[in-house]
């Protein structure tokens, strides 16, 4: 397996004098894998997701490197993702869903041997107004920098915050396709409709023109996912994407993410506080605590042979449908 991204010694502080939100985290994300990042509140999991997506606030102090390996063909604007435009075939051979980063593509984007730290200051000084990912990775050649939206799809916990309340949802999805795939409006709207169908929204023709407030929480999250994958990103980041949803809708959204990731050969970063939920989806699980990477392993190993006591305590704290009820342990009576 090739690493899609290598994180080395990543440290983040939100204020110059603040405590570290991330402390020297190093990990590789393999191309095509589903990696879960789990941890309790304040463990740094969202900080890690935001850092990867280049979305950290301007004032954040960032140390370390995030190194991408993205085939050139897939960062070019003429790239059309297989799953999204099934009838445009020329690029198909380059991205078989089973091996999205096959060696037939040129591997570019590796950083030079001497890797300068990622510094938001460079972006601030340059005065550019593009996405954070661009500004924070100044050592990358321009065309190998991963773009949020194009190379990275991001799904947030609260779909309402990522959707524009006064724009029809179809247009919001089409906007992503237009911006990153260079499609015209009619094509983008056709694509948006296909995507609404792919995320299993009923009557995509009608939903295309619906506003977010007309949709349920689960439906809004489906729209947000459609927008996140519209440009055919290599990496999908879901940051607590199901935490605001009820159990039944949560299971549906997890199943949707699983299917889309498989169909499009995407790499998945699944951020969650829920180790049981993460385990239903992930090939590997990384456990964060107080900004440090405590343990990283295959899902089976994490569940059955955790090396760290903290991982064990998280597993033990899970209240499953087969756990011994606290009521019994306490001997409480009704």
């Amino acid at each position, binding site marked *: 397996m090739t690493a899609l991204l290598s994180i080395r010694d990543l440290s983040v502080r939100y204020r110059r004098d603040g405590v570290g939100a991330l402390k020297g985290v190093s990990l590789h994300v393999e191309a095509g894998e589903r990696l879960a990042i789990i941890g*309790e*509140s304040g463990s740094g999991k969202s900080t890690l997701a935001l850092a990867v997506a280049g979305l950290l606030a301007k004032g954040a102090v960032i140390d370390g490197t995030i190194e991408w390996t993205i085939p050139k063909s897939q960062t070019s604007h003429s790239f059309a993702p297989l799953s999204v435009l099934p009838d445009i075939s020329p690029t198909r051979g380059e991205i078989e869903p089973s091996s999205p980063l096959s060696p037939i593509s040129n591997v570019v984007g590796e950083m030079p041997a001497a890797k300068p730290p990622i510094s938001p200051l460079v972006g601030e000084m340059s005065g550019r107004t593009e996405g954070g990912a661009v500004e924070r990775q100044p050592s990358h050649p321009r065309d190998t920098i991963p773009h949020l939206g194009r190379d990275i799809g991001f799904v947030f916990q609260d779909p309402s915050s990522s959707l524009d309340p006064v724009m029809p949802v179809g247009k919001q999805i089409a906007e992503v396709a237009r911006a990153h795939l260079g499609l015209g409006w009619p094509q983008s709207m056709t694509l948006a409709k296909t995507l609404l169908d792919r995320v299993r929204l009923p009557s995509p023709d009608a939903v295309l023109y619906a506003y977010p407030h007309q949709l*349920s*929480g689960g439906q809004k999250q489906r729209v947000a996912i459609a927008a996140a994958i519209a440009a055919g990103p290599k990496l999908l980041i879901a940051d607590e994407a199901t935490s605001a*949803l*009820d*159990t*039944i*809708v*949560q*299971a*549906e959204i997890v199943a949707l993410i699983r299917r889309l990731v498989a169909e499009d050969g995407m790499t998945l970063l699944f951020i969650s*506080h*829920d*180790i*049981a*939920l993460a*385990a*239903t989806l992930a090939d590997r699980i990384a456990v964060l605590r107080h900004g440090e990477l405590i343990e990283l392993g295959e899902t*089976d190993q994490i*569940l*059955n*042979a955790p090396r760290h006591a903290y991982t064990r*305590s*998280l*597993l033990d*704290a*899970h*209240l*499953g*449908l*087969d*756990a011994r*009820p*606290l*009521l019994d342990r*306490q001997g*409480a*009576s*009704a």
Partner: protein
Amino acid sequence: MTVLAVSNLAKRYRRGGKPFAAVDDVSFEIGRAETLALAGPSGSGKSTIARLVLRLIEPDAGRIDFEGADFLALSGAALRARRARLQMVFQDPLAAFNPRATVARVLDDPLRIHNIASRAERPRRIAALLERVGLDASLASRAIHEISGGQRQRVAIARAIATRPSLIVLDEAVSALDVSVRGQILELLLDLQRQERIAYLFISHDLGVIRAVAHRIIVLDSGRVAESGDARAVIANPQSAIGKALVAATPRLTRSRP
């Protein structure tokens, strides 16, 4: 002894101009020191039932008997006195407070409003309440925004028990907590229940949590009772479509070598 008896409760709202039943013909009872869980998908009416029971909203039909009295008929001083016996803990109940208010202030209010302790006596009572919920008495001088989420929920529980209630309505009270903290808060609730014989109306979307602490369960679907019974029996063998869907959707932690 029955603490709360709800019969044929109904509440209608309008959606898109058309009336619909948020709560439809719901009946149940809760006994002393008993935990009754309300489960169901989002929008099934759990919080509406909580608000009706607390009389934060008025029902369109039905009857609520609390401690043997017709709760809906009470008003004025009688209602205020009875309200002291019926408390609530929400997901982030202290979010409604001025974040700069101190913990002492938050606990002082119910003691003062319900004439439970004299001004001179109150600091001692506040310290005792904090200790009762496992917090250091020195926390009293801290501002609400200076304490952790778990500590805040303990303060909320301290506030709820300050008036010696017979029933506490808990609406997703542990949903926002980290799992380690969640376990401690659930233990605290069970301990209080045993010691003080408090009944809980326990609302949660998480069947694992319900199974850990509840004696009985009501599964709601679109405002109606889909099924009810012994919490473990219902969760082990749900009969209604919504009950089956909820159980099926609950993530399992399959450990081959536990």
